[in-house]
């Protein structure tokens, strides 16, 4: 941890700067070859229709019709060119630029989409619905990964996101059902997230139990507790306990009529708007406020913060609780927005995906936001495609988000650096 000595050689977290890392170019090359073989050579001989707006919208955009083969070859060739550029960059001894990876990812996505939709029985997809659905599916993931940002930036690994989401969902359903008000449910969800966070904080900060262990066990605890209450209380009298009112969709006039972007940004429930606000607020606060400076300091070098009079463990405690608020609100999405009512283990591992989005997004709120969007997109795509009837088996489509995650953590983000003291308890001398 010394800032003095040169870095020890095998510290895997050390930033790999100019030492050539062939990981990214190799991965890009492999993907480019896949693109050439599949999107290009394997392209279906028909046109693909992307519908850009709902026929009932105020402004109706014409459908986008692309010839599958030409589009496939075009993207594949550009992808190959980008892969060559990446190889050349590493050859020169510099890192692969971020823009290149980003452009590559977007193009690969377009190529894949054209190929997969073109191969379907009905090569016609509502792009606007695909995108809006992705954002919707990403909402709990984004809340979850923001919870991770808050907690891990201050030095506490938060595996309990899953539990926070699930308990939030449960509490929102029960409180909204009993009170008859979805807003009450929202507050209850936040409180439930805080309760899980409180346990995480007490055990990992006060009793210095391994943070990963506490997180995993808390997830089991919440799963058992909500499952138990679900079968012994909720399902016996669903009328009283498990019929929450839904949060209404609040359309902003005019703005929500903008094609494609309108529904995504301006036709959300309060949870959706809170999501955008949370991303922006947490980003600004983390990097521009006193609280953010101190949070990052206790996550990077707690002792330095301590010697400057910052109370490390109180800072961490507060951040973990705040993380609970965020994840709890995210959990309310499941019972107040997505479906009306709680179901056993209904978060289905989304908390873990949120964790992956956090790492993929390099512990940055904006990065986590886009990573979560990617996962939401992958999930929604598999849903849409299984309806269209594609040649790819349904199960493989369902695997997609998880495979993407494995590639993400193993390949592209090898260089990402976790907060220096994340996972390490601070014990004052």
């Amino acid at each position, binding site marked *: 941890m010394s800032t003095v000595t040169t870095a020890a050689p095998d510290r895997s977290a050390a930033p790999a700067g100019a*030492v050539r890392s062939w990981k990214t170019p190799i991965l890009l090359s492999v993907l480019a070859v896949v693109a050439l073989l599949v999107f290009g050579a394997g392209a279906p001989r028909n046109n693909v229709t992307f519908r850009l707006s709902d026929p009932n919208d105020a402004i109706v955009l014409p459908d986008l019709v692309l010839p599958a083969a030409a589009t496939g070859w075009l993207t594949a060739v550009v992808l190959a060119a980008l892969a060559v550029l990446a190889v050349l960059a590493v050859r020169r001894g510099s890192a692969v630029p971020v823009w290149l990876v980003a452009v590559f990812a977007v193009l690969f996505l377009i190529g894949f989409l054209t190929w997969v939709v073109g191969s379907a029985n009905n090569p016609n997809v509502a792009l606007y619905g695909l995108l809006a659905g992705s954002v919707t599916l990403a909402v709990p993931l984004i809340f979850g990964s923001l919870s991770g940002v808050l907690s891990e930036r201050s030095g506490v690994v938060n595996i309990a996101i899953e539990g926070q989401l699930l308990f939030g969902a449960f509490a929102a359903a029960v409180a909204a059902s009993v009170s008859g008000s979805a807003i009450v449910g929202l507050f209850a969800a936040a409180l439930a997230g805080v309760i899980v966070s409180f346990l995480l904080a007490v055990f990992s900060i006060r009793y210095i139990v391994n943070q990963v262990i506490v997180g995993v066990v808390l997830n089991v605890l919440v799963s058992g507790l909500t499952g138990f209450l679900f079968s012994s209380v909720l399902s016996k009298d669903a009328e009283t306990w498990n019929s929450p009112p839904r949060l209404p969709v609040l359309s902003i006039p005019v703005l929500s009529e903008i094609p494609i972007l309108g529904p995504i940004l301006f036709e959300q429930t309060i949870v959706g708007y809170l999501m955008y606000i949370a991303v922006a607020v947490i980003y600004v606060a983390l990097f521009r406020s006193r609280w953010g400076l101190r949070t990052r300091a206790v996550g990077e070098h707690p002792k330095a913060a301590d*010697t400057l*009079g910052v109370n490390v463990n109180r800072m961490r405690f507060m951040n973990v609780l705040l993380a609970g608020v965020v994840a709890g609100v995210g959990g309310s999405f499941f019972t107040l927005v997505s479906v009306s009512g709680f179901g056993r283990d209904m978060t289905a591992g989304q908390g873990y995906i949120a964790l992956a989005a956090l790492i993929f997004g390099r512990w940055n709120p904006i990065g986590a936001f886009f990573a979560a969007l990617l996962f939401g997109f992958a999930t929604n795509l598999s849903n849409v495609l299984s309806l269209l009837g594609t040649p790819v088996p349904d199960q493989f489509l369902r695997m997609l988000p998880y495979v993407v995650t494995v590639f993400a953590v193993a390949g592209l983000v090898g260089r990402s650096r976790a907060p220096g003291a994340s996972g390490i308890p601070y014990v004052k001398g």
Partner: protein
Amino acid sequence: MKLELKGITKRFGSLVANDHIDLVVEPGQVHSLLGENGAGKSTLMNVLYGLYQPTEGTILVNDKPVTFSGPGEAMASGIGMVHQHFMLVPVFTVAENVALGNETVGAGGLLNLSETRTRIRQISDQYGFDVDPDAIVEDLPVGVQQRVEIIKALVRDAEVLILDEPTAVLTPKETDELLGIMGQLKADGKSIVFISHKLREVKAVSDVITVIRRGKVVGTAEPGASTTELASLMVGRSVSLTLQKAPAAPGEVTFSVRDLTVRAANGQNVVDGLSFDIAQGEILAIAGVQGNGQTELTEAIMGLQEHVSGSITLDGEELLGRSVRDVIKEGVGFVPEDRSVEGLVGTFSVAENLILNRYDEAPFARGLTMRPAVIEKNAQEKIAEYDVRTQSASAAAGTLSGGNQQKVVMAREFSRPLKLFIASQPTRGVDVGSIEFLHKRIVAERDGGTPVMIVSTELDEVLELADRIAVLYRGRLMGIVPADTSRDVLGLMMAGMHADEALAQATELQGGDQ
């Protein structure tokens, strides 16, 4: 500001780290705290800085008793501290580091760093620091990082500045600059508590010297006191400053390094084209300020570094590109610089640590099965031979003291036939009694005909053990000089001057004082 400590006692359980220490720091004074490792200097300063609570005693600021429940309160009372290991967040900018804990907040709770930047520039100009407020700290050289630490204290209007072993990481030139800065601060009316075990520096800069030994104040001295006087006060008896060792009888050259280059993650060559030989029965000491490639050099030999080029031969065998295990089996003994991290598995027993790199060899293992009885017996023998103070062979190695841990590492490495012995910082953090023991062992290994390479950032240790001295600066060899080379010449070499140049300059200055 006047600072006074009265009867400060700090106990850890039944262990007394500070025993009724009295100390008065007058305004505008450089007050040195001299003592060897573990004498209790750092504990005392941590008490003063609010990091520890004293078990007994009082702290008085301007004759008023104060208690500090944390560093924040100490700072509020005008006490600033520059820790030996900088308390800087490496990924933050200088301004962010300086602002931390003392932030200016503008509209909407947002951070206002511009004021901090102005203050940094102001202080930087006043003392000639040349620090850019927007630089990322981890990109800065060590000397500049230290100045950031000083700025941090000055921004908080520190009247008393505690400098804890500030010169340990500096070149002789940087050290001189720091001593100059201390003079300037003093002239501005600041008091300085200078903690060190380096007699020369203490004598050069102090107004008052307080000597601490085993947690107690054993005396005060004027800076005019002689070096030997101070040394004996510090150690508690008259000291002979040299180890009795026979002159080396170098034999055949069996270990050769040619054009060795190690590239670091940031693309720089941390070891840059090194070539040297070590003969059998000879100790080559590698001198240099910490962080000039010594770590990477030893690790490259051991096979612990990637991105290494050149050649390393032992008995005609090429070691480069071999695995760590191969290098060890080839007969290379290695004492790494950080024993608790690299040399030992703290939760393993002493017995297990004594076979850490031989666990799969006869007689400790037969096939895949280990033989606990043999391992235990081996442990008993080594514990007796090396006088390792431990409750039992099954005690966790992490519970031993630094000196005893180092004995375990040394015992392990010396317990097999060696063709090369490498020790990095062999006595760092080791008590005086063990130092002598370990030094004698190293010399004995040399006398047995093994080529020995010692890496040490302590010039005294280098001069004591070396038959020849190689000086590293920024990964490059400044030359290999005889063991009787003067400190001035070595100091110039450590600051990046080649051997012949350094010799010329030193003689020019006045023939080198010894």
